[in-house]
């Protein structure tokens, strides 16, 4: 129990957020929206980690959240750089058009 709410509720909330993100990555075609969906997946994890951290009275879960935030920022920095390069060459960020390598 956390503040009178059972831990399972937290798990379900983050699982739902995570699934929304995962479905978004697979279903959406716009690259920016895909990045946002990946962020949503990572933030679902952050929420879960903070909930467990409070449940266990253990600070290491919250420290892990900082690691995730820092790494996610690095990943998005690289991602947006690649994306802007892709846009310069392809003039689109629709990932369906990025399929030259399929045979």
């Amino acid at each position, binding site marked *: 129990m956390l503040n009178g709410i059972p831990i399972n509720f937290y798990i379900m909330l983050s699982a739902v957020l*995570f699934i929304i993100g995962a479905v978004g990555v697979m279903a959406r075609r716009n690259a920016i929206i895909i990045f946002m969906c990946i962020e949503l*997946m990572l933030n679902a994890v952050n929420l*879960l980690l903070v909930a467990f951290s409070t449940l*266990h009275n253990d600070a*290491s879960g919250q420290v*892990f959240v900082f690691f995730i935030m820092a790494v996610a920022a690095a990943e998005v920095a690289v991602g947006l750089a690649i994306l802007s390069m892709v846009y310069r060459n392809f003039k689109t960020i629709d990932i369906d058009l990025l399929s030259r390598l399929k045979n």
Partner: protein
Amino acid sequence: MKGLFIISALGILAMLAEIFKFKKLLYPIVLVGILAAYVTNFMEWGQNNMSITMFNNMIHFNDMSLAFSGVILITAFFWFILANDYFEQDHVTDHFALVLFALVGALMLTSFRNMTTLFLGIEILSIPMYVLAASRKRDLASNEAGFKYLIMGSFASGFLLFGIALIYGATGSFDLMTIRSFISHANGDLPSFFYAGVLMVLVAMLFKVSAAPFHFWAPDVYEGSPTVITALMSTIVKTAAFAAFMQLFIIIFGGVSQSWSMVLAVVIALSLVVSNITAVSQQSVKRMLAYSSISHAAFMLMAILANTRNFGSINAILYYSLAYSIGSIAAFTVLYNVSKAKNSSNFEAFNGLGKRHPFMAACMVIAMLSLAGIPITAGFFAKYFVFSVLIGTSFKWLIILAILTSAVGVYYYFKVIIAMYFKEEEIHEEVTMETSHVLLLVLTTLFTIALGIVPNYVIEIFS
């Protein structure tokens, strides 16, 4: 352990080279530095009773991590010889720094003792690889490869993190040894979301090692990236990912193997069938090697599935990753030189190579035989040792499937050999090779044969 520091320092030095203008010196410095890291790594070997831990037990070097670090460092040394051209284009120092930081991540993956360092290791390895895959800025295929790699990589990281969070929720710790003792004390009385967490970590790791059905990104990424970066991905990244996979699933989650072994068996069967059948119809040797790397991943997963108590699996994975890395480096060296001269990496580019360049063709034959698993090369014993650990388990049917699909594999590896010796080339274009690449081919070929003749030196490394 000192190797980790040496490589990190080299990465920082590479970035400083741009400011202090010693770009020309950087290549020899990096080669010497990697050799130095290898030597210190070797000197720390065998001091098992004083294994080194750092950062609050987050990184832990024992003989096993030193052995895998050794494989990674020796492959890295060979790779830098192969990739000398790559470092003569623009953004030299950036490329050096990215590769070196990816190596730091790879070394962390051999030695992590905490979920934090697992996550950081994977990301430190992956993020530079995304940039390197897309490093040919004007090349549309390279753009696409980098982009796909990035999306799939961060998608997999999301799964890994969700798995880690669930395991943390069940056990209350990120420390691997605490998790292990928690599992053995719980006697199967674990919350159901713990098993969900283990499966999510499994899925994420399968993404990273590109096993079917999570392999769909790999052929596109391998084909689109610059050839030397493909060589880096299929050797060092794969070895590091397997070192991590093995630590997690043999040592830590070995106690709950009933929850994941069936899933893993199905994944292996799928990877063997899908990769070998699709590889047959490929036109490009580079893409064929991508599919072949999926089937090699399946073989290494079989050793993890066997999960033997007496180091048998670890020895088999170590030998397999060494044999596969060295064989791949040789194959990619020939492929790189041929595709540079002919501007194509299709099978036709190899036509007539046996007559014009008998040495290069002979090295390619040895590499292909090793990858196919034909005796007296390292690849044969690699597969043999995997079978020998798996034969004692209830998954014997996988061995039969593996042998059948390997027979299909022989066909597409021999397509290269047939092109080289039995087909005439239409337009003659001279394939030139630098002296350093000739030396590299001699070294890797001798290494492959030596590993095949005296496999005991590696296979009995842990007992």
